[in-house]
């Protein structure tokens, strides 16, 4: 890599080099410095109810099988046969007793143990199968049903890693009597962009709304968002944006789900359900968080949560210039099936690969990658200085807090990103 890392992101992270998104050497360092050392989101427990249930996941480019074992515990293994390396699982999700490798039919239990080697009987020295299971992801932890894995055996506990993000995540997850569930398989689509571009967008870039999305979002609606909007960084790389509604705001104005297409068009039973959730929100999450109406969230490095349109998203790198973006719709776990089917449309059609709104975002990520993959401009890094130093502690809200136009969420992200790369630079 031709660029010292300290030249990619300056001290206060107000200047970020285009090479951060385009350079193969930077990407190689990201794999070790970030994806090898962070907690990475794998899935949600609602996808794994019965023993034998499994879903596919990724940790960076490494395919993972996340499963519920016969002992009802969760397992995460690297999907690569111990014999010659083939992936042993081809389905996106399902329920099984065995994963059978196509090549020579070694078979693995749902927990990843090697169960049978068909060729074993024909040789005298039997391999020790107990040492030839699928490689386990060294750390696996859950919080509120969210499942994370880490390749770093010594990483801090997940709850500590999430830190004060739990306060903000719980404002949503804890709002519903039985929490949330993921509905359906993730929509996954490939874009010619760097993985950090969707992440940064979802971490706090609220103020592009009135511009990029003005074909759909009216200026007055965006003004209201910005007027009530707060942007929070709980720790570098973790951020939340939300509206804090006035204490006397009408239930319909505050209630999650009412502003989505499902809530608007879903009819009386859906709206009654949403009002009922809101009516008891203060009991469940306290009066302050009951007034929260979230926008975008990000958990370092690549998990995003779009509260307003009820979607969890993960940005999986596929090289510096390619990303596989996954998104799931989430619905309240206790809602009847008919209501879940309506509420999932708060996400679909507007977001995801067919999204009326998100098609503009994905266009921007592709164009931003294109605009950064250029030469003769290394002396003109991208400007990240809006609102420098204007973020402050807040009497009631944990973290540093500011207006949504302040780009501190991105500065903190890139400062952490730089330090993570520095920590492994020059080391094997």
């Amino acid at each position, binding site marked *: 890599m031709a660029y010292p890392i300290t030249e990619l992101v300056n001290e206060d992270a107000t200047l970020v080099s285009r090479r951060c998104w385009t350079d193969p050497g930077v990407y190689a360092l990201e794999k070790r410095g970030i994806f090898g050392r962070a907690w990475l989101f794998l899935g949600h427990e609602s996808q794994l109810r019965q023993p034998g249930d499994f879903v596919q996941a990724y940790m960076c480019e490494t395919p993972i099988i996340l499963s519920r074992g016969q002992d009802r515990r969760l397992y995460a293994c690297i999907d690569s046969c111990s014999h010659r390396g083939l992936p042993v699982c*081809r*389905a*996106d*999700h*399902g*329920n*099984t007793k065995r994963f059978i490798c196509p090549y020579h039919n070694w078979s693995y239990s749902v927990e990843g143990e090697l169960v049978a080697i068909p060729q074993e009987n024909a040789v005298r020295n039997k391999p020790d199968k107990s040492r030839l299971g699928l490689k386990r992801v060294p750390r696996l932890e859950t919080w509120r049903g969210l499942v994370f894995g880490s390749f770093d055996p010594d990483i801090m506990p997940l709850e500590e890693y999430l830190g004060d993000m739990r306060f903000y995540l719980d404002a949503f997850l804890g709002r519903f009597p039985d929490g949330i569930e993921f*509905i*359906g*398989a993730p*929509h*996954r*689509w*490939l*874009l*010619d962009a760097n993985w950090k571009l969707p992440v940064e967008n979802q971490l706090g870039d609220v103020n592009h709304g009135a*511009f*990029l999305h*003005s*074909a*759909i979002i009216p200026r007055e609606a965006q003004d209201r968002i910005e007027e009530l909007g707060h942007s929070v960084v709980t720790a570098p790389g973790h951020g939340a944006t939300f509206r804090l509604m006035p204490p006397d705001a009408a239930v319909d104005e505050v209630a999650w789900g009412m502003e989505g*297409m499902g809530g608007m*068009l879903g009819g009386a039973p859906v709206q009654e359900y949403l009002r009922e959730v809101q009516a008891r929100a203060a009991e469940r999450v306290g009066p302050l968080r009951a007034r929260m109406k979230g926008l975008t969230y990000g958990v370092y490095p690549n998990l995003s949560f779009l509260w307003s349109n009820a979607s969890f998203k993960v940005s999986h790198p596929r090289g510096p210039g390619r990303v*596989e973006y996954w998104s*799931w*719709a989430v619905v309240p776990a206790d809602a009847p*099936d008919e209501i*879940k*089917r309506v509420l*999932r*449309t708060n*996400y*679909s*059609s507007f977001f*995801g*690969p*067919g*999204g*009326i709104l998100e*098609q*503009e975002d*994905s*266009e*921007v990520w*592709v164009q931003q990658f*294109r605009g950064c993959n250029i030469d003769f401009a290394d002396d003109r890094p991208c400007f990240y200085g809006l609102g420098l130093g204007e973020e402050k502690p807040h009497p009631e809200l944990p973290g540093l807090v500011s207006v949504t136009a302040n780009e501190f969420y991105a500065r903190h992200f890139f400062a952490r990103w730089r330090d993570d790369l520095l920590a492994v630079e020059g080391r094997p």
Partner: protein
Amino acid sequence: MSDFALSTSPGQQRQLEAFYYREARLLDNRQYRQWLALLSEDILYRLPSRVNVQVDNRQRGDEDMISVERELEGADSMGCPIREETYIHLVLRVERAFKINSWSENPPARTRRLVGNVELMTHGGDEYSVLSNFHLYYARPGGASFLYSGQRRDVLLAAGEGYKIRRREVILDYGDIALPTLGLLF
């Protein structure tokens, strides 16, 4: 639905095909408002998600084992379709196309679609269930162009000399979604 299409008269078949040819021409010519006029206002427009499901061993040897239906997360499933739209959504998509800041189609995509394999499957009252296939070529500046391939499962409503579209389900033949958007009017 039976495996066999109804035997239609040449006149009826021509009328159905003419309807789809005109629809294709309107969309490729970006005459989206005229296209809207082809819709019944109670339209449900759906695009199921397509997933890689586990092959069920117990279904070995059966057609069901590899049926297309098993791969679809459609409107009636507890999965998550990619699009589930009403007339309101489609009006939004159409009106968006005529705004200068619909950036993902600025400049507008160049499309050309071929519609074929038009089969009338059932007919009851004034409703016609019709299958058709399409290939849609899509190009924008930047060097990449894309092929969208799919089946449309329609319910058409007899209206005057022609039809209105009351239901449309679009089954797209993607393996991975390596397409810039599934937000087009298919």
